[in-house]
């Protein structure tokens, strides 16, 4: 038992390590002084400063455009690809290639795309980032949707075909509804990944536009003010809310799909858990 108690040191250490910097960041955002280091008193002035900063607002709008565009591409292509890989081919090579954008270091993808855009002489801008984010998000959507496909049985689809439904009708009315929780989870993942993505955007956006992470990056390089802390605090609040809401939603989704006939229990593990381990094993296979 004493040994087990010793294990609590790294356990709590981990959580302190993870949350101490965040706590300091948030506290400093309410600083009335000019410095991001020394706390002088409570004030919301940096939040006002932030709301007037056009570079930040433009960056935010650009980020949302990129995230929305790339999520649409990734969700449609990734879902089709997942169904195709699970039901229409046995090619391991294709499997591996489909997962590559998620496995390769972002820097390698970034320079590859930069070279490619150079060769086809595409003027860089938001759409070149949309295409690039669509690429790696597609890999994640495909992986998440596949976790629902493997293990779900094909008997419903076969029954539908035997009862005279065409392939299109079967896909739209049987396969797609069964996959929907996976597709939604994949789309959410794609959206969040794009919001946060820096390296690929940095390389493929050119000189005229900036996404929010790029704005933050250049703000930090210029010097540290509590305005960045205020921005950080707001972003933290947004992503914490989104993650917790997402967690709630998957729980509700699970309860619903537990009631759906034809969905075997093994297929409905905790969504996040199933995803992370599955992607993990896929990475390992490559």
């Amino acid at each position, binding site marked *: 038992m004493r040994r087990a108690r010793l*294990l*609590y040191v*790294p356990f709590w*250490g*981990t959580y302190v*390590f*993870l*949350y101490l*910097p*965040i706590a*300091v960041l948030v506290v400093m955002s309410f600083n009335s002084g000019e410095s*991001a*280091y020394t706390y002088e008193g409570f004030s919301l002035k940096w939040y006002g400063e932030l709301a007037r900063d056009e570079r930040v607002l433009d960056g935010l709008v650009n980020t949302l455009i990129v995230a929305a565009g790339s999520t649409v*591409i990734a969700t*449609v*292509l*990734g879902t*089709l*690809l997942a169904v*195709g890989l699970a039901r229409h*081919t046995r090619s391991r090579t*294709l499997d591996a*290639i*489909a997962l*590559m954008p998620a496995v390769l*270091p972002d*820097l*390698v993808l970034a*320079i*590859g795309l930069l*070279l490619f855009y*150079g060769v086809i002489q595409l003027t860089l801008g938001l759409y070149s980032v949309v*295409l690039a984010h*669509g690429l790696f998000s*597609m890999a994640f959507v*495909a992986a998440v949707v596949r976790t629902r496909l493997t293990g779900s049985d094909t008997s419903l689809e076969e029954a539908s075909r035997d009862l005279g439904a065409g*392939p299109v009708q079967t896909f739209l009315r049987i396969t797609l509804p069964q996959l929907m929780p996976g597709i939604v989870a994949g789309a959410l993942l794609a959206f*969040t990944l794009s919001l946060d993505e820096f390296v690929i955007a940095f*390389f493929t956006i050119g000189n005229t536009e900036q996404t*929010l*992470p790029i704005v933050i*990056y250049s703000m930090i*390089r210029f010097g*540290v003010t509590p305005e960045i802390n205020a*921005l*950080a605090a707001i972003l*933290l609040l947004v*992503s*914490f809310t*989104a*993650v*917790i809401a997402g967690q709630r939603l998957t729980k509700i989704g699970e309860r619903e799909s537990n009631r759906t006939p034809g969905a075997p229990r093994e297929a409905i593990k*905790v969504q*996040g858990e199933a995803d*992370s381990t599955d992607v*993990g094993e896929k*990475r*390992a*296979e*490559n």
Partner: protein
Amino acid sequence: MKSEVKARPVSRSRGRRLGAFVFLSPGVVYLTVLLLVPLALVLSNTVFRRGRFGGVVYEFTVENFERLADPLYLGVVANSVKIAAITTLIALLIGYPTAYLIAQLPGKWKTVALVAIVLPFWTNFIIRVYAWIILLSGPGLINSVLGTKLELLYNQGTIVTGLLYSYLPLMVLPLYAAIERLDPQLREASANLGASAFTTFRKVTLPLTVPGVMTGCLFVFVPSFGNFVIPEILGGSKSIMVGNLIRDQFLKARDWPFGSTLALAIIAVLVLLLLVQAWVTRRA
């Protein structure tokens, strides 16, 4: 009747091929154009000469590889391996006990603990790195609490801290998945047969979770190794990692062929690691 029975499988198989085309071709086209062609460009660039004002001159040369063999650049690659390896090792040493304890928690707390591990991961990557500037800088929190004037920023330790902070969740999650899957009866049996807690861990728990360990190590090592943002923000200008070097070749020196060669070195190290991982996992 007979003709119908015969006809159906034929139309089904044609339908299958059509289905394969409809489902697979959009993704395959996208992957070919935006993944395979760009990767081919990176690869082919490694044997070409740089243009005088950037760009690539399509003239065969091995000078990029000769430059890579220069101790100056090989040293940077080796340094990156070292920093990523240290980060991975610390992540494993902290992450394993954490994952182990999370797996023992009762149901509801397990979810809370896991979400709390992942939560910082979903916030902006650069902001998470920035938080450490506030903590570690000269007038920062740690110095003012300790009343010291330590030079905590801009060294290799700071880079390791930043990498660890960014990628620790990627170590804990696969470890948790591996430990969670263990049958507790195995440990009970080991204890009943007289093994100490440590022996049980060494002979039962650890060997059975090796695949999780390997996955977690890979998840931490890969993004650490190729990173250029964290060394740039937290490392100052002194210690460069191979990621910084590649960034500079593309955006400053405009030497795309050499930048591509460095990227190939990154890929080579990663392929090597994947092979090691596959080998270890198969043996375990």
